[in-house]
């Protein structure tokens, strides 16, 4: 069952000096519980696609069909926590904006904080947390509004390499445990292969789909474990060639 269908998406940016075709002919089907990664050269318009999907930007043409009553959660680059709010208050932000601070929802947020190791930090301020913890808070803030589909826009790019591996493991487990579907944009190929069920490779601008890979790894488990699977490097090589980086 596809919960999200995107067909022939096209986006043109207009500037004074001309127009830029950012995305052309992009299609995507997302199944319930599926994790899709979109990779491509930097500046190719990957993030544009996510902005359009969650309604921050308007597509020039194409269609987006969403199953009824589905909710989006958007996690963008960096954690964007509000320094003047406590961790707890940061997590309630989305619910506040939706005027949805019901007892049940607050309980859910508390439960998320407890489950994911932030129990003792509810009253702390973001400055006192490590990069990985901040990222977890940012994910809980998104999950608090109970979205069905998560859009992750290079969510780990601000972290150093080790933290990044640990946090992506973390986030992946949380997403799977809460049974969310997700679309992640990244320029890190190994991150994409280790986390996603399906990797969509985009070309340089204008972004078109170059290839789609169903990722089938033996003993598929968490992202860090997945990196050890024997098919991992095969996928990596293929995608690397697709993207055709040249310096």
């Amino acid at each position, binding site marked *: 069952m596809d919960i999200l269908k995107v067909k022939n998406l096209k986006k043109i940016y207009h500037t004074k000096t001309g127009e830029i075709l950012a995305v052309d002919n992009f299609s995507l089907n997302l199944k319930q519980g599926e994790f899709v990664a979109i990779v491509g050269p930097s500046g190719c318009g990957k993030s544009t696609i996510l902005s359009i999907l969650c309604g921050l930007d308007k597509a020039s043409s194409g269609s987006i069909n969403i199953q009824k009553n589905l909710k989006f959660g*958007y996690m*963008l*680059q960096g954690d964007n926590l*509000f320094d*003047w709010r406590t961790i707890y208050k940061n997590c309630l*932000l989305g619910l506040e*904006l*939706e005027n949805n601070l019901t007892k049940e929802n607050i309980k859910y947020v508390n439960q998320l904080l407890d489950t994911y190791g932030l129990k003792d930090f509810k009253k702390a301020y973001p400055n006192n947390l490590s990069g990985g913890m901040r990222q977890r808070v940012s994910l809980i803030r998104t999950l608090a*509004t109970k979205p069905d589909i998560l859009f992750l826009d290079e969510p780990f790019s601000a972290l150093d390499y080790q933290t990044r591996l640990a946090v992506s493991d973390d986030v992946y487990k949380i997403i799977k445990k809460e049974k969310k579907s997700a679309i992640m944009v990244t320029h890190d190929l190994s991150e994409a292969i280790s986390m996603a069920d399906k990797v969509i490779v985009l070309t340089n601008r204008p972004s078109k789909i170059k290839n789609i890979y169903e990722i089938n790894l033996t003993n598929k488990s968490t992202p860090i474990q997945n990196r050890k699977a024997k098919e991992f490097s095969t996928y990596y090589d293929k995608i690397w060639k697709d993207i055709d980086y040249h310096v």
Partner: protein
Amino acid sequence: MYSKEHREYLKKIKLKNFLIKFTQILIILLFIFIWQFAANHNLINTFISSSPKSILNTIINLYQDGSLFYHIWITFYEVLISFLIATIGGIIIATILWRYKFISKVIDPYLTILNSMPKVSLGPIIIIIAGAGTKSIIIMALFISIIITIINVHQAFISTDQNKIRLLKSFKAKPYQIYFKLILPSNYNNLINVCKVNIGLVFIGVIMGEFLVSKAGIGYLIMYGSQVFNLNLVMTGIILLAIMASLMYYFIVFIEKRLQK
């Protein structure tokens, strides 16, 4: 208990802070002392430069005939009213400009002109329109402080982190929610700074206004003193102003610290 090294470190910091405070107080005491000394021994012309003693006497005299606090109150009242209107009004107008980009683009060159123009030149017009009284003084102080408030606050508002705005928009936040949840709290420090700057500017405006029209207030004391060549009165006025302005500044710092807790 801390290690010995750490205790010594703390001691050093304490000593340093004490030395700074001590030197600060020493400088002002020394200044007053040298001033008085030079006056006593006719090294300076006390008719022009006055002396700490005669300033003190002037203050006591003013206090005894009951006009000291009257003048202070008049100036304080004018400063307070102008400060409140300039700061709150400035923030409200900046908010409107933040919300409606079209208005902000249209009004931009006019703000620049008004900001760079010497506002004193408006004095005569203000007096003719508003009359020679408190109203003119307040309008004068407003002109001097509100334009720069609008410009600074608006600049701070539009420099708010775009990613955070996107985040709020992804939660379908309405403009008023973005304003109250993000724009205002994230610019808290900027707003406090605007307040600090405004205290200084409003004082300039009020004293200038009092020079031009007033019948009372510290500015009036200074103006009156200079016209009758009573330099003691002029110096007294200046010192009263310095005390008032710094007290109001520290009041804002106090509020700032209070709110941060």
